[in-house]
């Protein structure tokens, strides 16, 4: 027999002014199972809570209904009070008679009547409440960072700083990402490599950090605190433990006409290569698409010259499995492919380059040793046109609908650097808007205009035509002068939009995290939880979540690290007990629930059942992982046999509420 206590709150006059609380307490006192029904001035106050606690002890209550304000306000207060009096906190129900009754109604009689009905519904529900215990799930004290750019490096360093082991998985042979390719950084104009490479070295030397370069995540299983990740270490045909990075093999390799992707294809590398001088790990990698030994079996020069015998042509892809408590996604971005924008003649003319290509052309470690030369004839350009928003801010069919955010600033940087180094060069920037929100950003842009005399023209380039004399005709509008311009440029630089890395979408599927239509990872809350994904235990760092410049990326990387550390310091995590559970005897293993679960919390297991005729049958039944289930209840409705139910909001509880209201 249930022993239920009802406690009606006056909330000063907030409730008592429009609801006759005494009458509510009186009426609910007659409900079946209710053995005590009281009202009090302020139920949430210390003495009000004591009233509840004492009643629980005195009457040995099995359920509590508090008629008060919204459960969103004080449900936890009363649950805690019940728990301290020895009652399971999930045996407390709140009837919302303030926000949803006294505050919206004026007529005392009808408001009182409604309050009684709401109270009755809560009593009917609490009759069916079951004591719930929040489960605990252990946390593996190791984090995985996917992506080894500046975001991934910063996140890994911060997590390692806190004393946890971190693995970085990077698909390229070296960590460093896009920042390693950048020449200078805005708005301070300090060299990117000078600030990045020490961090790369720090990451490689940190005892808590393991770098899996030339590797990919191939499978993710598990849930917050307990992910099992399979990492594919691609065969690099060089023994990482033996290679010293001396570079002799790269010099002797006869296959030395491979486009160098680090320098955006402006120069060549050999088939066995180290991407750049400061690569981490500094280990050679053999490119199987070009290596003669791997393709035809004839060569083997590198293995002959290697003094430590690190070359291993028989190496194969290796799968390693590792458990992690938290995963940070830092897959970064790429400039978009410009094939679609043939009006800019990017594919026709070598002197039309993207901004990232310009970074390499101007970099001291780049193909021209830091002298800006036209890629076509290696002459010094005297007129350079920058085009903004190429592929950004477009209608969906024409490109990316978002602003790529970084282009305005890096274009100002490029323009300024060129004018600084080559004052005889005319620089034109065609812009739609100059967007410079950021510390010292607008000052920087103004400096480009005022001090360096860069010609900023409000308008857009309509057509770029390479001419036979080597010049490039740039046809553009100048909206403020209301005229159409023709500029005979030597070089055109396109600020290509940036997009998330192509590997991000399959990764999101593996991680069961959400992405927006542009393939950027979606944060759990756009304002208040910007570095967490909606999937527990998965955090977002850097440009995989949206376009970002370096300071923002680093800030987000550290924030993601802080969130991951907050998870890793726990020995176990408390799970929400209001989760789905399946009645195995009713489940027919149809998979309907598995398909609707947004968290992948439902799996199928083969279980032995003793049949009435004493035989044992193996049946496929649904099993909910309570650590992963968030308790939405989608599966309960999908289940055709009614086996799936939700703790705290069970079918019978909701029906009891419906019945109580409709009586």
């Amino acid at each position, binding site marked *: 027999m249930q022993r239920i206590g009802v406690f009606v709150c006056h909330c000063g006059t907030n409730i008592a002014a429009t609801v006759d609380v005494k009458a509510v307490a009186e009426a609910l006192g007659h409900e079946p199972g209710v053995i005590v029904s009281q009202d009090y001035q302020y139920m949430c106050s210390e003495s009000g809570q004591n009233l509840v606690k004492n009643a629980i002890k005195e009457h040995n209550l099995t359920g509590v209904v508090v008629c008060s304000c919204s459960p969103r306000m004080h449900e936890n207060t009363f649950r805690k009070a019940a728990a301290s009096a020895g009652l399971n906190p999930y045996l407390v129900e709140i009837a919302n008679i303030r926000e949803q009754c006294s505050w919206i109604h004026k007529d005392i009689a009808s408001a009182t009547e409604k309050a009684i009905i709401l109270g009755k519904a809560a009593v009917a529900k609490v009759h069916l409440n079951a004591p719930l215990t929040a489960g605990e799930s252990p946390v593996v004290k190791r984090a995985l960072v996917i992506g080894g750019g500046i975001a991934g490096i910063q996140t890994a360093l911060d997590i390692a700083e806190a004393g946890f082991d971190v693995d970085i998985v990077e698909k390229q042979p070296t960590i460093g990402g896009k920042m390693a390719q950048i020449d200078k950084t805005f708005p301070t104009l300090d060299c990117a490599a000078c600030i990045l490479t020490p961090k790369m070295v720090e990451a490689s030397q940190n005892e808590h950090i393991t770098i899996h370069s030339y590797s990919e995540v191939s499978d993710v299983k598990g849930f917050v605190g307990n992910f099992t990740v399979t990492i594919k270490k691609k065969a690099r045909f060089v023994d990482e433990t033996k290679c010293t990075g001396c570079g002799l093999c790269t010099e002797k390799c006869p296959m030395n006409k491979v486009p160098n992707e680090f320098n955006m294809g402006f120069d060549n590398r050999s088939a066995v290569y180290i991407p750049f001088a400061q690569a981490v790990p500094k280990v050679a990698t053999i490119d199987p698409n070009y290596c003669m030994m791997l393709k035809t079996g004839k060569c083997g020069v590198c293995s002959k010259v290697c003094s430590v015998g690190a070359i291993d042509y028989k190496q194969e892809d290796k799968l390693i499995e590792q458990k992690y408590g938290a995963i940070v996604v830092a897959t970064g971005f790429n400039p978009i492919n410009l094939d679609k924008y043939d009006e800019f003649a990017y594919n026709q003319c070598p002197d039309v380059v993207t901004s990232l290509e310009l970074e390499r052309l101007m970099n001291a470690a780049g193909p021209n040793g830091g002298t800006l030369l036209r890629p076509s004839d290696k002459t010094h350009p005297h007129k350079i046109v920058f085009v903004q928003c190429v592929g950004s*801010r*477009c209608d969906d069919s024409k490109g990316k609908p978002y602003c790529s955010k970084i282009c305005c600033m890096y274009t100002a940087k490029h323009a300024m650097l060129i004018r600084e180094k080559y004052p005889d060069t005319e620089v034109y920037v065609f812009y*739609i808007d100059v967007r410079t929100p950021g510390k010292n950003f607008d000052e920087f842009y103004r400096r480009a205009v005022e001090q360096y005399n860069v010609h900023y023209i409000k*308008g857009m380039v*309509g057509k770029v035509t390479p001419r036979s004399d080597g010049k490039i005709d740039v046809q553009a*509008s*100048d909206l403020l002068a209301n005229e159409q311009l023709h500029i005979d440029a030597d070089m055109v630089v396109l600020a290509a939009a940036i997009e998330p890395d192509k590997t991000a979408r399959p990764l999101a599927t593996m991680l069961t995290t959400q992405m927006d239509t542009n393939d950027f990872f979606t944060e759990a809350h756009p304002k208040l939880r910007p570095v967490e994904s909606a999937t527990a235990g998965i955090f977002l760092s850097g440009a995989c979540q949206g376009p970002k410049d370096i300071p923002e990326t680093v800030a987000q990387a550290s924030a993601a690290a802080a969130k991951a550390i907050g998870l890793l310091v726990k020995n176990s995590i408390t799970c929400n007990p209001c989760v789905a559970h399946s009645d195995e005897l009713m489940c027919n293993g149809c998979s309907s629930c598995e398909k609707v679960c947004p968290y992948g919390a439902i799996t199928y297991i083969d279980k032995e059942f003793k049949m009435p005729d004493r035989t044992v049958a193996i049946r496929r039944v649904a099993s909910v992982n309570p650590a992963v289930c968030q308790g939405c209840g989608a599966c309960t409705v999908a289940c055709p046999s009614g086996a799936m139910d939700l703790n705290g909001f069970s079918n019978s509880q909701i029906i009891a509420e419906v019945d109580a209201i409709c009586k």
Partner: protein
Amino acid sequence: MNKNLKEQVLRSCGVNVLKCMRCGKCSGTCPSYDEMEYHPHQFVYMVERGDIETLMNSKSIYKCLTCFACVDRCPRNVEPAKVVEAVRLAAIRQQGNNHMNPNQIPEMLDEDMPQQAIVTAFRKYIK
């Protein structure tokens, strides 16, 4: 400003002028820019403002080649050429007669004139 006229133009071209982000790529790409008093981006903006009579009275509406370069290159898919065409139609409807007699066309032709322009001329001037 004539509200009905604006609505008529917007309906006949089917263009959402509010999509324009004022980048000016249409005017940057327009081959007959120098011939025109009002340029493609101005057409879009002035239609948005409802300043259509000015456009109708301008020779610009007959200078557009309808080459659709602006339509092809507009990053926002605004389709300025359709706006120009709609204003032209509005003008022709209001005049109630053709801007040009078909008999005049042969003597205006010259070797450099692209075929597209002739086709366009017919589309423009004949009901």
